[in-house]
């Protein structure tokens, strides 16, 4: 399951989709909106995606991960639209027979998703806003 959705992410569903009877381990990464960035208070975030291409890029990432680790199941759900601090922006789950593979694969997927998936976010602060990473000379935000 690869989903780009304006609705709140159902984490349990992401986990259930990734689970497998042959798996001993499920690793789940959940990205949440932080209430501060560069020392400023974040009011909300606006997420935007090139949906068809985002799904295609995430599929390539999953294919690569499935090639590198013995995954038995996986699911990726990324939210778009307006998100407040504390809300879930992305949930990724993978299952594998043994736990180390689940950790490595899940980390690879979120790392590569952040690098490749055509998804953007604008942070709205008190008194300002900024497209994250878009312009030089602006502190980068990692989460």
């Amino acid at each position, binding site marked *: 399951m690869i989903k780009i959705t304006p609705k709140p992410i159902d984490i349990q569903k992401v986990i259930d989709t990734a689970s497998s009877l042959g798996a001993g381990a499920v690793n789940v990464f959940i*990205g949440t909106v932080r209430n501060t960035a560069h020392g400023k208070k974040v009011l909300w975030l606006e*997420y*935007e*995606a*090139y949906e*068809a*291409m*985002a799904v*295609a890029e995430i599929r390539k990432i999953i294919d690569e991960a499935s090639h590198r680790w013995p995954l038995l199941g996986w699911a990726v759900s*990324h939210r778009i639209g307006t998100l407040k601090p504390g809300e879930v*922006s*992305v949930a990724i789950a993978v299952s594998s027979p043994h736990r180390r593979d689940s950790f490595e694969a899940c980390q690879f997927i*979120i790392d590569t*998703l*952040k*690098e*490749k*998936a*055509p*998804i*953007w*976010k*604008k942070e709205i602060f008190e008194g300002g806003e900024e*497209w*994250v*990473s*878009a*312009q*030089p000379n602006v502190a980068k*935000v990692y*989460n």
Partner: protein
Amino acid sequence: MKCTVQAFGITREIAGSKEVVVELPEGSTVSDFKTVLFSQFPRLSTLTSLFIAVNQAYAEDSQVLKTEDEIALIPPVAGG
């Protein structure tokens, strides 16, 4: 040829529209396209990076564009 290009994130705001139209000579490459684009929207050249997607995949600078291609501007991504 006339290319209708999708713009996302900060490129959408710079262009002032979800779609921009760029006029290109036949046989133009992605690199040629970017040159025309930057002359049309100079602020796009101030971005940390700008990739071009053709048919929903990242394109090389040398790729030749065709009329029917789906083209999109990909400013620095920040998903997750």
